[in-house]
């Protein structure tokens, strides 16, 4: 009897966790970039004929179902790999000039993103992400506040960010995007006139590089019209922990991990940004490799 009691307690806590997850999914707030993508565990029936067989059956069954799910994903990945890169024929991939990477047409498209603000570190900004009314674009809205948190150390604060989750494959392996054949980032947005920061993070296994990213600005126009933003990848500059580094190099596009949008323009007030889709394409007229050459005054070793 006490064994059965503990078992019931475990199941009730798991169900509570699931409810909390479903509630949190609406606001999509969280500091961790990595997370399960729509991964749902199957519920195991609680009614069993004899109590001594219940834990063994449920635990083994759950483990087996999880393993079967991951093996099925692995099979799908192997079949897609045999068909061609990204599961498409090679000829189609080679001749591709434009690709839609993220679009917002369903509720599940929002699960690929994480929204965060300095509320997680004690600030007063807040940010929310949801579908717009006609279910054709994502609406990112909230309030920016540059009041620093009262922790004694912070002097400046105030940011709101939206970051895409790292894509995951079978057995939770990290995947990445390969944008080697494209040279321009394309965003179809509608904002309120505020400037945003577009950050691209590369896939790297080193812990020391987890704050490194490539950034550029996205100036929204405001007004009721949609705006097409084209940012060549050569314009992204290298930054670490929000500071522009002295040694600059071009963005390597074969292992892109995630993309993010950050608002921190020191103007307190509400904001909104609608995003239709995000894509990459090849601009034949753009032949620049990198826009920021290194300075011999700041980096004398590079010029010896």
């Amino acid at each position, binding site marked *: 009897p006490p064994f059965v009691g503990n078992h019931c307690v475990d199941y009730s806590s798991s169900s509570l966790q699931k409810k909390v997850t479903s509630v949190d999914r609406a606001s999509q707030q969280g500091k961790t970039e990595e997370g399960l993508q729509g991964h749902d565990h199957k519920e195991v029936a609680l009614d069993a004929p004899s109590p001594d067989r219940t834990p063994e059956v449920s635990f083994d069954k759950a483990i087996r179902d999880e393993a079967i799910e991951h093996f099925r994903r692995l099979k799908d990945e192997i079949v897609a790999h045999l068909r061609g890169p990204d599961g498409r024929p090679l000829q189609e991939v080679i001749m591709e000039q*434009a690709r*839609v990477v993220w679009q917002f047409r369903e509720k599940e498209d929002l699960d690929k993103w994480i929204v965060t603000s300095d509320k997680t570190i004690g600030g007063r900004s807040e940010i929310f992400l949801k579908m717009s009314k006609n279910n054709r674009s994502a609406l990112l809205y909230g309030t920016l506040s540059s009041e620093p948190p009262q922790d004694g150390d912070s002097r400046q604060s105030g940011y709101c960010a939206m970051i895409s989750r790292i894509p995951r494959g079978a057995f939770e392996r990290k995947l990445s995007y390969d944008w080697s054949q494209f040279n321009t980032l394309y965003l179809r947005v509608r904002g*309120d006139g505020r400037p945003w920061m577009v950050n691209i993070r590369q896939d790297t296994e080193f812990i020391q590089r987890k704050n490194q990213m490539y950034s550029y600005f996205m100036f929204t126009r405001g007004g009721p019209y949609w705006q097409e933003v084209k940012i060549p990848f050569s314009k992204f500059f290298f930054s670490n922990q929000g500071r522009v580094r002295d040694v600059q190099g071009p963005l390597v596009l074969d292992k892109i991990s995630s993309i993010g949008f950050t608002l921190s323009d020191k103007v307190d007030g509400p904001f909104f940004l609608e995003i239709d889709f995000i894509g990459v*394409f090849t601009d034949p007229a753009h032949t620049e490799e990198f826009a920021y050459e290194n300075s011999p005054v700041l980096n004398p070793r590079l010029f010896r």
Partner: protein
Amino acid sequence: KDEPWLVPRPPEPQRKPIKVPAMHEDLFKPSGNRERDKASFLNAVRSFGAHNVRKRGHVDFIYLALRKMPEFGVERDLSVYNLLLDVFPKEVFRPRNVIQRIFVHYPRQQECGVAVLEQMERHGVMPSAETEFLLIQIFGRKSYPMLKFLRMKLWFTRFKNINPYPVPRDLPQDPLDLAKLGLRHMEPDLSAKVTVYQMSLPSDSTGMEDPTQPHIVGIQSPDQQAALARHNPSRPVFVEGPFPLWLRNKCVYYHILRADLPPPEEEKVEEIPEEWELYYPQKLDLEYSRSGWDDYEFDVDEVTEGPVFAMCMAGAHDQATLIKWIQGLQETNPTLAQIPVVFRLARSTGELLTTSRLEGQSPPHSPPKGPEEDDETIQAEQQQGQS
């Protein structure tokens, strides 16, 4: 009463640094009836130099002056920053040998110098050659403020002209000019015309704060006029808003005149007029087919929304003011007199702005939502009848 006891009190020695700025705080207090402007700020900085020949406590004074800059309105003045750097004693903090250069020579003073440059960077002030000369004289070439200066000089020139929609540094104070700037900023069509339908008339009793009639400024492009002329008079148009637009650190609100998507059967193809010249045909029916390597279109369902016919900014956001805007629009859009106008206005609060923003993307064939809109439609029709 229990709460003050629960909060731990800071120790006694921590109170002493708070009193140190009070020693120099008197320099920044306005004497007599003088205002807080650049002259009084310069006078305060020079007073510190006069009272303190040895410049003892100059780091605290510079930090205090940096905090006081926004109050005096000199936070974007380069000469004031140079004057603050001039407060540092010269040739004292320069490293004289390699050992001093390896370690941070005079770290508190270098941090203060970096703080001055940081505030310049935050307000977008480009350092000049005088700044460089001052930094070399105070800290030397191999110092952190000098490094910060070099980085600012490098990246400020790179990011100076990257905004495709520039907003002037100083926004106009006149609400009419601000509305014109905002409308021109939002409109992508350069041939659009800004029209002032009504000037703001101040009331005699309350002055400028409460004008009896607010200003109304609108913008419309020739394409939008043509689209409004082709609009089916049996389908209503909607006035929606207010929507926010940020110009630097000022938020202004605008309204739009838009319609729902026409049903698919009404989308008639515009007929091309008769050929008037055989050598230069108006329509070419070439059969060049695009191959896979030549396809630059994104494979995505397009967001279909109703057309926007006009935009306006008004001094007030009530329906009576917007009705005057519609009446002004009818001078250049005669067909607007026959089209019913429905007002979908939201209260000017942050929460409802998002709702009204969502309202702006209603799906096609949306039915009327309630009696309020019906009443507004009836009122609008009555207004049309009266006009």
